[in-house]
């Protein structure tokens, strides 16, 4: 008797819940845009957040709503923008320029002078909090690879204490820019191909004492290509809005060789 009732009661209970779920599945059905899955498949899927959305899926939802343009995915570049344009049925955008991350420091491990031995936590963030990890230069790369750790595209490798960027893999998502406690990584247009590999705002004499490859603010680059180079605060900076000007002579004349091509 008790076996029969238990089977019936449990069976009925199961049936009631199943029926409820079936009804609910129908009642609470969500019409999902078919393009959403296609767009998510095209996007890089790193959820890097460079576009301003919370992730690739959030970007896809905003794209369908028309809140962002097909070229909005910074990590995807031209290729992804073209595919998205095909899915969304709009014209292919032409304003997508490849941008890459570069580090404004050129001092390799042996070239860095230290004033103290650092034996704390091996991250740039921790080292920066404790007097720059004992580095003489207050601006240069600390070399513990915080940028390497956050890169979602595996585009950074550490070589002799400096991050080396694989420009084919780099998507300019900006994670390394945010991770660097010394703020010496920036995003530049790839086509420009020139970068000042120093961030030191010390005077020329002080920089020369700390580092053999630091910018000493000699202004030779400014004389060679005044439209592009400008020395401000004892540091040469490049105006990346100027295009079509050859920085070659400045690169050759730079006495400390701190102006370099990025694709070397």
């Amino acid at each position, binding site marked *: 008797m*008790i076996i029969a*009732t*238990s089977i019936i*009661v*449990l069976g009925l*209970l*199961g049936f009631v*819940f*199943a029926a*409820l*779920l079936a009804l*609910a*599945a129908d009642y*609470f*059905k*969500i019409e999902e845009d078919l393009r959403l899955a296609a767009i998510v498949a095209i996007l890089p899927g790193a959820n890097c957040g460079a576009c301003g959305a919370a992730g690739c899926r959030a970007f896809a939802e905003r794209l369908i709503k028309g809140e962002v343009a097909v070229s909005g995915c910074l990590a995807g570049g031209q290729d992804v923008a073209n595919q998205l344009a095909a899915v969304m049925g709009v014209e292919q955008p032409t304003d997508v320029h490849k941008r890459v991350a570069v580090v404004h420091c050129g001092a390799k491990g042996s070239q860095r002078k230290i004033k103290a031995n650092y034996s704390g*936590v091996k991250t740039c963030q*921790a080292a920066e909090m404790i007097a720059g990890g004992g580095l003489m230069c207050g601006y240069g790369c600390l070399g513990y690879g915080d940028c390497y750790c956050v890169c979602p595209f595996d585009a950074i490798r550490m070589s002799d204490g400096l991050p080396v960027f694989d420009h084919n893999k780099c998507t300019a998502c900006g994670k390394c820019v945010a991770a660097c406690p010394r703020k010496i990584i920036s995003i530049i247009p790839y086509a420009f191909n020139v970068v000042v590999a120093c961030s030191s705002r010390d005077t020329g004499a002080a920089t020369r004492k700390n580092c053999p490859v630091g910018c000493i603010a000699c202004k030779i680059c400014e004389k060679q290509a005044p439209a592009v180079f400008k020395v401000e605060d004892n540091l040469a900076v490049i105006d990346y809005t100027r295009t079509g000007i050859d920085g070659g002579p400045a690169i050759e004349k730079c006495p400390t060789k701190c102006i370099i091509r990025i694709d070397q």
Partner: protein
Amino acid sequence: MELLGIFFAAFLINNILLIRFIALCSFFGVSTKIDTSVGMSFAVIFVMTISSAVSWMVYHYVLAPFHLEFLRTAAFILTIAALVQLEELYLKKMIPNLYRAMGIYLPLITTNCAILAVAFLAIDYRYDFLRSMVYSLGVSGGYSLAIVLFAYVRDRMALAPIPKWFQGYPIAFITAALMSLAFLGFTGMFGL
């Protein structure tokens, strides 16, 4: 006053994680980041309250009249699994922001032993409906308190110089044990 006693007994003195040692898998699994532990806490409070209400009704209005109390394990698992599915469907449609905030934690909670334990314990203590509601609120509040505190501790542990052999779970277990000892100090509070 008795309700307050039930709440605090469940919240602090018989804390489900640190004194009863139930639901430890989620305690160690989702406490690595503060925001995930907060998300998990809210999902547990939400699911535990609703599921203990429904399982109380199932026990008293379906199982008890037929003298089928021994079936409560199967019946409660069925109830909770169906209920979480239902909640997920409802939230997805009606409150998508809350659904996104709780994210993966909702289906994860279906198999969380704390949910089932609360349904059982409320029956074992012979609580009526109101008392079992207060009890489940207390338990889920205690769960949230313990897991969020633990997440903050683990956040600090990530930066601490821990010997290699203790890194990861070993130090987490030791820390949880110390927290549990600290919570033992609440025993006897309010005469409970």
